[in-house]
C-alpha cells in the first residue's frame, strides 16, 4: 500500500498551483467588489444600514451629483478594505443590479483609500 502510493506519487502532477505565475481559478460565484451605479440610486441609505463593518457610508458633500433623488447632498463612499463582501447591501438594495451589485472584480489595493486618508486629501 505504502510503496504503491510512493511510486504513484513520483509520476503524479503536483497538487499545488504555481501561484504567482499561474492565475488562480476563480469560481463563478466569486464574491468580488461591490459596485455602484449612481444614476439609478434613490438614496434610501438601506445599504449603509445593512453593512456590518460600515464599509458603505453616505457622506455629506459640498458638490452633490445631479441625481434628483439626492436631496440631502450626500456622496457614496465605499471602503473596499473594510468590506467583508457578504453581499448584505445588495440584498438590502431596492434596485439590485442597477444601483448596487456584486461584481467578480478584485479590489485594487493601491487605489483603496480609507476615510481618514480621504479626509486628509
Amino acid at each position, binding site marked *: 500500500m505504502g510503496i504503491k*502510493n510512493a511510486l504513484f506519487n513520483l509520476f503524479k502532477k503536483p*497538487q499545488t498551483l504555481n501561484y504567482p505565475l499561474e492565475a488562480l481559478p476563480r*469560481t463563478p*460565484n466569486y*464574491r468580488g467588489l461591490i459596485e455602484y451605479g449612481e444614476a439609478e440610486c434613490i438614496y434610501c441609505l438601506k445599504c449603509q444600514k445593512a453593512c*456590518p463593518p460600515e464599509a458603505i457610508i453616505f457622506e455629506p458633500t459640498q458638490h452633490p451629483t445631479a441625481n434628483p433623488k439626492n436631496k440631502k447632498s450626500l456622496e457614496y463612499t465605499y471602503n473596499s478594505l473594510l468590506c*467583508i*463582501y457578504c*453581499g*448584505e447591501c445588495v440584498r438590502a438594495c431596492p434596485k439590485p443590479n442597477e444601483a448596487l451589485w456584486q461584481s467578480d472584480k478584485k479590489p485594487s489595493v493601491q487605489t483603496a483609500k480609507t476615510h481618514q486618508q480621504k479626509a486628509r486629501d
Partner: protein
Amino acid sequence: MKKTIQIPLGSQHIALLEPIKFRFECENEKIIAVDSDVGFVHRGVERACATKFSFDSVPYVVARICGLCAITHSLASTMAIESLMEGEVSPKANYLRILLVELDRIHSHLLCLAHVSENAGYEAMFMRIMGDREPIMELLELITGNRVQFDYVCIGGVNRDIDSRIVATTQTTLNTLKSKIQEYIAEFSSNWSLALKYKNIGTLSLEDAYRYNAIGPLARATGLATDVRSSSKLLPYDEVGFKIVVGESGDIYARNMVRLQEILNSIEMCRNIVEGLPEGEILTPFKGKPQGKRLQDSKPLEES
C-alpha cells in the same frame, strides 16, 4: 527530596501557534501532570457585539472568531436571534444549513486527522489528507463564494441557492472522498505509526468525560453518546440520515475512528440533502427586532 521537575512552556513559545501557558510535571522522560492557562487572548468580541454592532450584523462578527468553524458560530447566533423573533425558516434553508455544517465538519475532521498523523511522525499521510481536503474547500467556495469566511447563513435563511451544477460537483467530490476515507480507515487501524502508537494513549475514561462535560468526538470516543445534533431539534437532522457514532476505549485511536466514521456519516447526509432538496424559498424575511427576556424562560437541553 522532590523527584519531579517542572518544565514551563509558554505563554510565548516558538512551537505554540497561539499564546497558551503549560507547566509540565515530569518524572524523568514521563509527563505525569500538566497545568494549563489559556486566558491570554482577549479580543473583545462579546463587548463589540453588544455595543458596536446591530443585531443583524452579529452573525457576521462572531463568524470571525474562528476560521475553521466559521459556519457554526454564525449559525448558532443566527438561530438564537431567530428564536427571539417571529417568523419561520423554510425547510429548504434548513437543509442547506445542514449541508454547510456537515461539509464544514468534513474538512475540519480531515484537518484534525492530518495533524494527528503529522504528530505521529507520518508526514506523508499529512500531505495526502490535506490534498484530499482541498476538493471540499473548493466545494465550499463554489457554494458560498469564499474558501473560509462563508457568510452563508443570515437571519431568515441562507444567502445563496445551489443549482444543478453544484449538485453534480458535490456528488462527484463526495464519491471520491468516500473511497479515500475507506482507505484512511484501513490505514488508521492497521498502520504502526497511526494505530499501535495511539492505542491506550491519552485515554479519557467515561466517568471523567461525564464529570468534566466533555463534548464532541472527544466525548463520543469514550462511549458517551452526546451529540448536539441528536439532542436538539433545531435542525431536521433525523430526516437526513444522522447516526450517532460512539467509540469505546477513549484513547486517541478511538477518537480517530470516531472522526473517520463521522465523516462517512456526514458524506451520507450531504448526499441525501443534495438529492432530495425540496423546492422553495431560501430566505424568509423576519420583520422587526428581537424580543428580550428569552433567557429566563429557556429550558436546558434534555438529557441524552
